[in-house]
C-alpha cells in the first residue's frame, strides 16, 4: 500500500498549488493570443507553452535540474540567446533606407523617449502601495518602450531577472498590439495635410556603403558606448554576413537555423520565468500598464519629431514615419504606411518608414547601453 501512497504523493493534483493553476491558465492564454489573435506567435507560442510546462507541479521542468531550467541557465543568464537572435535580426535586416536618408535616425532617437519616460513612470509608481521598484527594475521595465524583444530580454536578464517573464510578455504583447495602439495617437498629433505629405523617392544605395555601414556603427559604439557593444556588435555582424556576398552559407545559417532554434529555446526559457511567485504580483499589473504607456509615449515622441523635421525641411518629411521609430520591425512601418494610405491612397510610405524603423532598433540598443552603463553595477 506504501506504493499507492508514494504514487498519490507523486501526482500533480496532490501537489498542485493555486498559483500554478493560474499560471498554467496564463500560459494557455498566451498561446491563445498567439494562435487566434496572431500576437507574435513565433515568440508567444514557446513562451506560453514554456509557462505551462514549468508550472507543472513535482516535475520541476523549469528548475535547476529540469531541461528548461538548464536552457535558461545556459542561454539567458549568459545573454547568449538574445545576442544570437540579434545576429539573426542583423542578417535579416536591410539597412538601405537608413543609409540613403541618415536623418531618419533622429526619428529613431526621439522614439526612445518612450523608454526614459517610462523609467520616470515606473519610479513614480513607487508612491502607490504595492510597488517598490529599484532603479534596476525600473530600467528593465522601461526598456519595453524600445519595442524590441531581444534587447528587452538582454537588459532584463542583466538588471532584473525576477521581472523577465512579465517584461518579455509585455514587450511581445504590445509589439503585437502596435496596429491598435499607434494609429489614434498618430492621427491625434498630425494634421490632415501633414499625413498627406508625399516623400521623394530614395536614392539607390551602393554595395560598398552597405558593407561599410556595420563597421561605422560598431566603431562609433565602441568609442562612445561600449556597454551597448554586445548588442550592436552582433547586430552589425549579422548584417555584415548578409551584405558581404561571399559568405552566403553563414548568412543563411544566421537567418534560419540559428534564429529558429534559438527562438524555440529562448521562448521556453522565458516561459520558465512565468511562475506564480514572480508573475502574480501587483508589480506585473504595473508593468503591463507602464508597457502600454511606453509604446504610447514612444509613438508620440516619434511623431512630434517627425513634425519638427517636416517643418525644418519645408514639408519634405511625412510625420507619420516618425511613429515607426519605436522599432517593432516591420509592424510599425506597416502601420505608418497604412495610416498614410488612409489620407492618400497613392502615397506609399512603407520604404520611407523603414529608415526610422531600423533606426529604432539601433536607438533602443543605445538606450539599453546607457542604462547598463549607468544603472548596472
Amino acid at each position: 500500500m506504501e506504493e499507492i501512497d508514494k504514487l498519490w504523493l507523486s501526482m500533480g493534483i496532490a501537489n498542485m498549488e493555486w498559483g500554478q493553476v493560474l499560471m498554467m491558465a496564463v500560459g494557455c492564454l498566451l498561446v491563445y493570443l498567439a494562435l487566434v489573435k496572431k500576437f507574435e506567435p513565433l515568440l508567444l507560442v514557446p513562451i506560453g507553452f514554456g509557462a505551462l510546462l514549468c508550472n507543472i507541479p513535482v516535475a520541476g521542468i523549469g528548475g535547476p535540474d529540469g531541461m528548461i531550467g538548464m536552457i535558461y541557465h545556459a542561454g539567458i543568464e549568459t545573454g547568449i540567446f538574445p545576442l544570437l537572435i540579434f545576429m539573426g535580426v542583423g542578417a535579416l535586416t536591410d539597412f538601405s533606407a537608413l543609409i540613403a536618408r541618415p536623418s531618419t535616425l533622429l526619428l529613431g532617437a526621439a522614439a526612445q523617449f518612450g523608454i526614459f519616460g517610462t523609467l520616470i513612470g515606473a519610479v513614480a509608481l513607487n508612491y502607490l502601495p504595492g510597488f517598490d521598484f529599484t532603479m534596476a527594475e525600473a530600467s528593465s521595465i522601461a526598456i519595453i518602450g524600445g519595442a524590441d524583444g531581444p534587447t528587452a530580454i538582454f537588459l532584463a536578464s542583466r538588471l532584473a531577472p525576477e521581472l523577465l517573464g512579465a517584461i518579455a510578455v509585455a514587450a511581445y504583447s504590445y509589439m503585437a498590439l502596435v496596429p491598435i495602439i499607434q494609429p489614434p495617437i498618430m492621427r491625434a498629433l498630425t494634421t490632415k495635410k501633414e499625413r498627406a505629405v508625399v516623400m521623394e523617392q530614395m536614392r539607390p544605395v551602393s554595395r560598398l556603403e552597405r558593407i561599410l555601414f556595420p563597421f561605422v556603427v560598431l566603431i562609433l559604439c565602441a568609442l562612445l558606448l561600449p556597454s551597448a557593444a554586445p548588442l550592436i556588435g552582433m547586430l552589425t555582424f549579422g548584417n555584415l554576413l548578409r551584405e558581404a556576398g561571399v559568405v552566403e552559407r553563414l548568412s543563411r545559417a544566421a537567418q534560419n537555423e540559428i534564429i529558429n532554434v534559438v527562438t524555440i529555446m529562448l521562448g521556453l526559457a522565458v516561459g520558465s520565468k512565468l511562475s506564480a511567485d514572480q508573475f502574480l504580483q501587483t508589480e506585473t499589473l504595473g508593468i503591463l500598464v507602464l508597457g502600454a504607456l511606453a509604446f504610447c509615449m514612444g509613438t508620440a515622441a516619434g511623431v512630434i519629431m517627425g513634425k519638427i523635421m517636416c517643418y525644418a525641411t519645408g514639408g519634405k518629411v511625412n510625420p507619420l514615419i516618425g511613429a515607426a521609430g519605436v522599432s517593432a520591425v516591420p509592424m510599425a512601418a506597416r502601420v505608418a504606411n497604412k495610416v498614410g494610405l488612409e489620407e492618400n491612397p497613392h502615397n506609399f510610405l512603407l520604404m520611407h518608414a523603414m529608415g526610422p524603423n531600423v533606426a529604432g532598433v539601433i536607438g533602443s540598443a543605445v538606450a539599453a547601453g546607457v542604462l547598463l552603463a549607468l544603472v548596472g553595477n
Partner: protein
Amino acid sequence: MNDSSLLFESLWLMVIGMGIVYGFLLLLVGILRLMSRVALRLAPDEPPPAPLAHRSIGSGDSEDLIAVISAAIARYRHPR
C-alpha cells in the same frame, strides 16, 4: 534611497540618456553622410559586384600582409 531621490535620479537619467541617444545618433548621421560621400567617390559608377567579384590577387599580397602587420607590431612595441 527614498522615492523622491529615485525620482530625481530617474529624471536625471532621462536627461543624460536622451542626450546620449541623440548625441550618438546625430554623430552617426554625420558619419554616415561622410561615409556615403567617400564610398561614392571610391566606387562612383557602382557596377556593384565589380570591385569584389573578380579575383584579383596581386602577387604582392603576401608581402602586403606581413608589411601591414609588421608595422602594427612595431608601433605597438615602440609607441613613441
